[in-house]
């Protein structure tokens, strides 16, 4: 057999996926890309453990801890309780968690302002919609997804308060067929742009857009633009990979980052892809307006809502 385990002195990194697992084309995959970049650019040894259920998080993190990897990445807010407990028991080890805040000195917490990126997606959709009718398609109806939903809806209303935003949830991140069917329902219902924040099921919505003229879809998490060139207006990417790589680099340089990183538009950790296939369709004017909105968010003039309650209280800001 080949050698297993890090060489002496080699930086070793561990990662625990959430139940979505590798291959989700989204969140877990993105983190994995960051890890692979650390392997290639920093020469790190990497190891990934996948989880089948919430009950696997704890043993997986423990397992990596026991293998004495230099830093363990917990990918997903569901791991916060478990990570907190383990981190306290192992004050000499280093951990990072994505999408949640764990208040321990040896844990880096990385959260993203998904509502900011989603706001931009909503604004772009409202500008591009010819029917003044757009839609949001979520995976499961959970608080994290509602950050996307609220930001997107607010962004649309920032551009045009009269735009209709239909909201539907697949009820799963796996059921691609249901994603496609719901995509069709939304398009048939009059929406011409869908923001598909539904993991693998979102691929179904992209399919639905492909067969329609005048319809667009907005991808999520990873850059999905090439999956249907020209039909995917943009993807609201969340650069988990960037965060993972940065944290890993800090580790290698023996100055581990601690505390809470909130990554947003200004860090380029969240944002829209650069319209490779849709630039002309969107046009310069709209892109200018979009960057104005982006600057306003970064400057704090616009504070996108991150819950349905906040959305209800939210009012468009005159720029």
């Amino acid at each position, binding site marked *: 057999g080949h050698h297993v385990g890090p060489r002496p002195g080699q930086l070793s990194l561990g990662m625990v996926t959430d139940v979505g697992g590798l*291959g989700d084309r989204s969140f877990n995959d993105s983190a994995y890309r960051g890890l692979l970049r650390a392997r290639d650019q920093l020469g790190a040894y990497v190891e990934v453990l996948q989880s089948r259920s919430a009950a696997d998080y704890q043993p997986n993190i423990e397992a990596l801890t026991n293998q004495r990897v230099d830093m363990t990445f917990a990918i997903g807010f569901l791991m916060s309780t478990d990570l907190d407990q383990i981190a306290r028991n192992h004050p000499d080890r280093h951990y990072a968690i994505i999408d949640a805040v764990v208040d321990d000195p040896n844990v880096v917490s990385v959260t993203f302002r998904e509502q900011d990126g989603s706001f931009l997606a909503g604004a772009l959709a409202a500008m591009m919609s010819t029917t003044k009718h757009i839609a949001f398609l979520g995976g499961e*109806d959970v608080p994290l997804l509602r950050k996307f939903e609220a930001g997107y809806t607010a962004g649309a209303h920032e551009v045009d308060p009269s735009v209709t935003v239909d909201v*539907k949830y697949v009820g799963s991140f*796996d059921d*691609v067929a249901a994603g496609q*069917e719901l995509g069709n*329902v939304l398009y*048939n219902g009059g929406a011409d742009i869908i923001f598909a924040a539904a993991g*693998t099921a979102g*691929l179904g919505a992209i399919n639905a857009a492909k067969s329609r003229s005048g319809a667009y879809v907005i991808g999520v998490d990873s850059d999905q633009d090439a999956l249907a060139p020209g039909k995917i207006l943009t993807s609201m990417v969340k650069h988990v990979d960037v965060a993972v790589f940065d944290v890993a680099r800090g580790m290698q340089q023996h100055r581990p980052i601690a505390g809470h990183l909130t990554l947003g538009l200004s860090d380029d950790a969240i944002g829209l892809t650069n319209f490779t296939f849709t630039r002309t369709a969107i046009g310069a004017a709209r892109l200018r307006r979009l960057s104005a909105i982006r600057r306003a968010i970064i400057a704090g003039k616009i504070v996108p809502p991150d819950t349905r309650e906040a959305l209800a209280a939210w009012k468009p800001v005159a720029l």
Partner: protein
Amino acid sequence: MTLALLVTLLTLTVLKATPIIFAALGGTISERSGVVNIGLEGMMAAGAFGAVYATSATGNPVVGVIAGILAGAFFGFVLGVAATRLKVDQIVAGTGINLLCIGGAAYALVVLFHQQGSSPQVASLGTADVWLIVLAFALAIALHAFLWLTPWGLRLRAIGENPRAVLAAGIDPLRVRMLAVTISGALAGLGGAFLSVGELNIYSDGMTAGRGFIALAAVIFGRWTPLGATLAALCFGFFEALQFILQGRVAWLPSDAMQALPYVAAVIALAGATGRVRAPESDGVPF
């Protein structure tokens, strides 16, 4: 409700029902011969994966559909061997097949496509999938006629009731059961292929999402008849479609409650309309 909405509702109903119809027809023929096919879900996954793999290899989704049928048939055959020749308890074998197929597809994604979770996109039947929908309904009618009008249908049903009686009549019940379960797998595989290269263009882990189990329920709701199972599958499709359309329109009902709609409807139907349904006498009993 506008006309457009009604059209969406009806087309979606049919679309939702089609893969379930295929699998439920398979379940019906298998149970009529006396073998409970708990493995429908796994066979659907096998069919869905097989179809995507063959399509990616040949670029032709029609070849994919055929491969999906064969993949399902293969696991149907495995269940048949286990349940008839090896005398394995049918439920055990079916449970094993589910684990095997769903895990096997995840594993095959890595070995064949070198990626986890989902396959690359492949060619798809596109609008030609309508022919598969037509086929589903045609098969339902054909199977009904087969079971109730032909000698072989009569023998198949008799085997499900009392295989010893059929043996006494000089027919080998085990061979007929093998064949029935293999066909059952082929139909489930076709259902899976319809999903992956008919409606979609991809295999992804968990994409069958319980449709095989729903098909099992449709078999029972349909009282072990092909047309009954088809009707039951359409009902499921209808309530699924209805919840898709109603979501977000009925503000006081959260999406989770909406998603439970087809299942709640099924439970209510259990209490109300269906009453006492009787399985074939020897259904599930090894011979």
